[in-house]
């Protein structure tokens, strides 16, 4: 059974390879292959989940037969697939959402000249993402981590002839690389300290002796977090995600909403045992004494959530709004991890995957209907033109805002609850973010779907074909109901084996949030109501955004995303570009010019000077000869 997991992993790769090598010319066949592979993976994952679920817990996961990738000295890297509730849940999400998006793409991308290439990329991505999920050790995770980045690069830059897309792809990859730099150092640090890269061995060592990491525990934890920071686009590495919306919309849905960006959060949950180690800092960082890694993570997550939510208020591109919303929700999840709550984080990750994929696909449906118009102020009144899209989009919005009984309510509530237990500041922040979320989402809905038709394209819009609508409908189901499936409890059980509770029944499940943390539930609900009211007040039937008139400075700052891109550009040109310029100058003029050109040059000059002796005059020669003899005589006889 457990070795079938290899099949789950490799089916998509297989399809990617076949498409790349053989079926590139046959677009339909390529698409079918790719879809077939991911659907097959989904079914196998389901089977494994059902077959193994009961027998597993988070500490004693099963492992499929490993494959020794590298073994040199005390570095032993065995690629194996770790099967435990966490990874099984995640592969279901990845293959499930992935399968729907594959199918949706079949309609969305039809007619594109790069159809086969697109599906090859999608399959490659699925492979890489599954690899991250199933990885049993850090090196393997890093390998797939990079591969995910690469496939994201390919897909974001899918329309490579558009400069914006090409630049966005580059930016995404490079920003991720910054995070990976820390991640890799973290991995090496852990390996150097504990001598292993395997999750289960590391976990065992740290749980047995929390002080085993010594002074490196906090640094190591934060370095590992750097990886998550890049992939999950946390401040200050968040800048790539909005730009990545230049990719095709299904890609945005799959990679930049549901799965890849969640990888960071998943990874943090996967290695959460690291943060159980006794916090300590090396002497050089002793001023940080008293701060532990989790706090840093929580505040970075919270900050990202707030920052993104604020920026989202003033975005006008439908995909960018969703992108910032994704950022904000990712911040939420990271904050949850930081609040010692991996299970709420995972819970929110799961529900978010459903409703954000739904939202993106809905946005994609709109965009394709409007012939790639993305400005919400040029939409309006789409409710009647695209009823199914509208309905499902609205469901997604409600789920995102966290209105009961939509799934988002439950997961968000879990996070709020965690915050309320640990930190007042973060709790307030989380509530604020929840309110802002409702505000900008309803701003979107009001402007784009309700109100009057604002443009020519919108007037001629039609509902999307069935192949695109079906996935929307399917995704709408978990968006609505996932909160009632016991995912939260399932996770809680696995992360906190001590707090085993009976599986609750449906009604209990429904009202559970009010039961165990009423404050969080009420505040969450209140935030939704406030947010909605503001949105309604400002944007119901609005044709123009009122905020820029009232707060011009604020709006400008928000539209320009607080000038992060500009600042970074300056920073890079001040550091790397300047150093590169200096190095190049040094290379060109000092090493290659002065030293390398100079030495032979002066030698040649010397030669030219020397041969001036050869005047051609016999007597000069005689003179030189005699002088030479005289010198030798003098040297030998009077030394």
């Amino acid at each position: 059974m457990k070795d079938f997991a290899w099949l789950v992993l490799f089916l998509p790769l297989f399809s990617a390879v076949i498409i790349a090598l053989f079926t590139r010319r046959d677009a339909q066949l390529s698409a079918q292959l790719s879809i077939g592979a991911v659907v097959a993976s989904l079914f196998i994952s389901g089977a494994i989940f059902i077959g193994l679920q009961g027998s597993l817990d988070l500490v004693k996961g099963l492992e499929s037969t490993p494959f020794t990738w590298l073994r040199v000295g005390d570095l032993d890297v065995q690629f194996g697939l770790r099967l435990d509730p966490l990874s099984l849940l995640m592969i279901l999400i990845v293959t499930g959402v992935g399968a729907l998006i594959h199918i949706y793409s079949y309609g969305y991308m039809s007619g594109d000249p790069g159809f086969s290439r697109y599906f090859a990329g999608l399959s490659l991505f699925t492979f890489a993402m599954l690899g991250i999920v199933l990885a049993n050790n850090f090196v393997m995770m890093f390998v797939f981590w990079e591969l995910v980045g690469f496939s994201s690069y390919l897909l974001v830059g899918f329309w490579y002839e558009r400069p914006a897309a090409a630049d966005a792809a580059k930016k995404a990859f490079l920003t991720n690389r910054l995070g990976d730099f820390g991640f890799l150092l973290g991995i090496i640090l852990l390996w150097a300290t504990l001598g292993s890269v395997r999750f289960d061995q590391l976990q065992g060592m740290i749980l047995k002796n929390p002080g085993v990491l010594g002074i490196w525990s906090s640094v190591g934890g934060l370095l590992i977090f750097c990886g998550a920071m890049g992939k999950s686009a946390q401040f200050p590495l968040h800048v790539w995600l909005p730009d990545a919306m230049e990719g095709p919309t299904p890609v945005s849905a799959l990679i930049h909403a549901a799965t890849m960006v969640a990888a960071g959060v998943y990874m943090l949950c996967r290695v959460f045992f690291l943060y159980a180690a006794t916090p300590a800092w090396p002497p050089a960082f002793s001023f940080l004494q008293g701060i532990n890694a989790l706090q840093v993570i929580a505040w970075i997550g919270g900050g990202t959530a707030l920052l993104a939510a604020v920026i989202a208020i003033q975005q006008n591109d439908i995909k960018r709004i969703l992108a910032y919303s994704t950022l904000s929700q990712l911040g939420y999840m990271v904050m949850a991890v930081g609040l010692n709550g991996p299970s709420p984080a995972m819970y929110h990750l799961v529900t978010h995957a459903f409703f954000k994929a739904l939202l993106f696909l809905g946005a994609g449906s709109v965009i394709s209907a409007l012939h790639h118009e993305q400005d919400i102020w040029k939409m309006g009144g789409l409710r009647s033109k695209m009823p199914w899209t509208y309905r499902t989009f609205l469901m997604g919005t409600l789920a995102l805002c966290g209105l009961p009984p939509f799934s988002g309510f439950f997961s968000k509530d879990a996070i709020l609850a965690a915050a309320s237990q640990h930190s007042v500041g973060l709790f307030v922040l989380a509530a604020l973010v929840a309110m802002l979320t409702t505000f900008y989402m309803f701003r979107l809905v009001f402007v784009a779907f309700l109100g009057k038709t604002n443009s020519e394209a919108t007037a001629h819009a039609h509902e999307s074909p069935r192949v695109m609508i079906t996935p929307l409908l399917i995704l709408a189901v978990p968006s609505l109901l996932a909160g009632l499936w016991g995912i939260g409890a399932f996770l809680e059980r696995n992360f906190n084996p001590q707090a085993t509770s009976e599986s609750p029944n449906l009604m209990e499940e429904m009202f559970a949030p009010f039961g165990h943390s009423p404050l969080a539930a009420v505040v969450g609900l209140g935030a939704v109501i406030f947010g909605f009211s503001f949105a309604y007040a400002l944007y119901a039937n609005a044709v123009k955004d009122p905020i820029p008139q009232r707060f011009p400075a604020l709006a400008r700052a928000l539209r320009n995303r607080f000038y992060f891109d500009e600042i970074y550009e300056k920073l890079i040109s001040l550091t790397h570009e300047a150093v590169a310029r200096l190095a190049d100058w040094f290379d060109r003029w000092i090493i290659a010019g002065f030293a390398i050109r100079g030495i032979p040059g002066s030698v040649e000059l010397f030669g030219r000077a020397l041969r001036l002796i050869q005047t051609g005059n016999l007597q000069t020669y005689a003179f030189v000869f005699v002088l030479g003899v005289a010198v030798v005589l003098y040297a030998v006889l009077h030394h």
Partner: protein
Amino acid sequence: MLITFIIFLPLLAALFLLLVPREVRWGIRVIALGATFITMLLALLLFLKFQTGLAGYQFELTVPWVRSVGINYHVGVDGINIGLILMGAVVAFAAACVSWEITNYEKEFYVLLLVMTGGILGAFASLDLFFFYFFHELALVPTFIMIGVWGRGENKNYATFNITLYLSVGALITLIGLIALYLQMPANARSFDIVALSGYFKGNSMPASAQHFIFPLLLFGFGILVSLWPFHTWAPLGYGAAPTATAMLHAGVLKKFGLYGLIRIALPLMPQGARSWLGILAWLCIGNIVYCGFVAMRQRNLNLLIGNSSVAHMGFVFLGIASLNLISVTGAVLVMVAHGFLAALSFALSGYLYQQTGTLNMDQFSGLLRRVPFIGTVLIMAAFAGCGLPGFANFAGELLVLFGAWKTLQPFAILAAWGALIIGAVYMLRAVRTILHGPADERWAEVKDANLWRKAPFALLVACLLAFGFWPRWLTEKIKPSAEIILNMATTLTPPPLKTVALEPLSLNTRPSGVSDR
């Protein structure tokens, strides 16, 4: 015997080519391709027949050559050079494949190409210092001539002059070092045989003064040959001017000679010299990785960029050597092999683009991916392999080097990781962005993608990169036992007075040799 075939097949083919009239163009090409192809198959056979896990030399052959001086024709392979030989043979075949771009003096070109191939393979297979050097020079001269005659660009003459003088200096310094090494043996037992030398110096330590004198000679002699910072400027310049096949063979294979020499000769024979010089090497290799990475960021010419990046990659090997532990040295050897494939691939690509467009100035290009989907895809793969994407062999090697380096040279490992992950990615992606992405330029409407035959060398090289990227153990398992022996010698500072003690493990890295892991 097999190794001898591998070395001499190209050389004999070169001789045979001399007899073919130059009008028979296809004949010349077929002979060159055939010879390199068979060489490649033989090298593959050698690789497959090599017994993994054994530490000593295999397929040894010794023929006395100049007895009075103690020179033997002695060839053999162990884990360190088996991969290099395979890589060299594959790259040679690929280089012969891409040489369709040559139109004038075809015959001479292929003769030189074959001589270079034979020299390269001989240099890596030789277990005798003299032949080691001899074959290297044999390969070096064709390089100079090829760049001079078939090179390109307005800098051609200067580049030829530059690379010739630079490499000659490096080679001669090395030669002096090797001779000095040889003279350290007692007069009656002098031999250039590496096995004999290691055997002797295992039991009798070289005087410290000699080590401190010879080690830097070898370090800098070899260093110049491998473009160690700050002796690196010949590389981008020379490769920028070189014809494709030459750049592939030199940057890919021949350049590794110096690194191979350091690992094979300098480290094990002169542990004390190594101890005092490796710290400096660590600094210099940061010059390679970081500084040359930065320089590469500023290049607008694709060949100069690849050249600088190849210099930067050499830094990882140097770092691996400087770290002096099993993981890093194994990684260094792996990087050598991987970078061989990669450099050959990169230069083949740039050669193709140059042949099609007549320029390598990246600002002239835009959106070429539309015109040349295959070449473009391979270029993307090469770029990502160059910035250490998993799946390609480079990643495995660099990973090992970084892991190993962390043990002994932490700050350098951090800088190297920065160079590998960030700087490398910056310039590689910029290149891809400028050349392939962006709106398609009408100027290049005539540019054609490779046809099936011309795809072959690219496919071959990518396949090799991927194969060793997926299964690096094919190499590491072979490298390990040999690297262990070298490290044992390199980390044993003073040999014990009694033979009995010498048998005991002396360093942390000692593991029973000859035991394979699986």
